């Protein structure tokens, strides 16, 4: 088995392909994570401020999140006018997913900021926008990070499903191995995906520690 993997990786063209797929996988999983977060924060803020918006936002987030990823990948061309193999389908679908997944933690995290802290910031003359950026959002980071970690693992694993309909990423090693009846690329793909999820998770935990120095004091 190990010999097989060594044999597969000894070919420079295979090594180049694996690296290229790893890069694709990273972009397809992480770009939506970033854009989804950027979309979810203002949306969550609005839902946090306006009660009537909350039900609508949570409701549509649940619906989006319940639709299976592969189905969403396939429906995208119908909505966007893209080709079926276009990577934009995966990018847009996973961005929707990430946004839907993160909006609730954003609202929960903002709700959990203690009232006296917000009141103190207001009393010190913070305008709402600055108070949000400097006080409420930083205090929401620990809860928000839980959501971002979920989205990160979930995106990394969902990208590989896209290989069924031929969109790039490490999942292509699975279809290649299946078609050629060869285990080596499949094992390499599984190991790299688990490794990627683990490294991203470590990075996010580290990022949370760096950005919330006050949580370490206790």
């Amino acid at each position, binding site marked *: 088995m190990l010999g097989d993997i060594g044999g597969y990786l000894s070919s420079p063209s295979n090594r180049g392909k694996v690296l290229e797929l790893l890069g694709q996988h990273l972009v397809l999983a992480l770009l939506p994570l970033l854009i989804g977060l950027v979309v979810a924060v203002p949306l969550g803020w609005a839902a946090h401020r306006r009660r009537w918006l909350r039900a609508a936002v949570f409701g549509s987030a*649940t*619906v989006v999140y*319940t*639709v*299976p*990823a*592969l*189905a*969403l*990948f*396939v*429906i995208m*061309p*119908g909505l966007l006018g893209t080709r*079926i193999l276009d990577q934009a389908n995966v990018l847009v679908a996973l961005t929707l997913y990430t946004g839907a997944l993160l909006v*609730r*933690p954003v609202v*929960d995290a903002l709700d*959990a900021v203690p009232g006296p802290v917000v009141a103190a910031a207001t009393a010190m003359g913070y305008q709402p926008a600055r108070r949000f950026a400097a006080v409420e959002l930083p205090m929401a980071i620990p*809860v928000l990070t*839980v*959501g971002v*970690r*979920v989205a990160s*693992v*979930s995106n*990394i*694993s969902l990208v*590989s*499903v896209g*290989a*069924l*309909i*031929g969109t790039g990423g*490490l*999942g292509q*090693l*699975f*279809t290649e*191995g*299946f078609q050629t*009846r*060869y*285990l080596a690329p*499949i*094992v390499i*793909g*599984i190991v790299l*995906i*688990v490794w990627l*999820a*683990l490294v991203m*998770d*470590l990075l996010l*935990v580290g990022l949370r520690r760096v950005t919330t120095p006050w949580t370490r004091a206790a």
Partner: protein
Amino acid sequence: MIFSQVLAWFADPAHWRGPDGVGTRIVEHLYYTAVAVLIASAIAVPVGLLVGHTARGGVVLVGSANAMRALPTLGLLTFLFLLLRSQAAATLVALVVLAVPPVLAGSYAGVRSVESGVVDAARGMGMTSAQRLWQVELPGAVGLLLGGVRSAVLQVVATTTVAAYVGLGGLGRLLLDGLNSADYPQMAAGALVIAVLALLLDLLLAGVARLVVPKGCRLSRQSDLGRMAAAQPRLIGG
């Protein structure tokens, strides 16, 4: 226009009947899903309840459940298929592996969510260990446990499409056969059926949870956050 083509696909009665019609595919799809979730629950519920009850090995349990979550199902499926040479066994094992972590996390978190004061009171009343588990911890755990089963069902129903990749049936057939014959309306129709099926199942399970959870143990809105923190993947503690 694409939407009218998809509608036309649905309107053709030939697409609904017969061994490769939508009806058969839905039944196959639900069958694979049910078998996988039942087997996963039979494994994960007792383990989760027991570890929660004894409060020993929780760290190991949560750690291994989360490592399982990172395994890509398509990779596992193709790996198992080449290894076992059996479509059914490979699909079943891959889907069970997918369904175990949420059920495990839900049943473990459910038992741990019962307030220790309540369990102590039960102990003080002279209840044995088994009585405490059955009469106090289990009723308190049902809400989170069913939450875990619900998320397992949704993940499996979404992923059972991969069964078609190794040659089995299910709604994945519509996607893959449509892809092979460049028939986008059929693919889109299959995707829509899968999406509607998932949404309906989610509603159904939410209703079941409402009926089954004891009145005294309904989760309040506030505990949603705790449930998310407890039941979601964490690869590394902290």
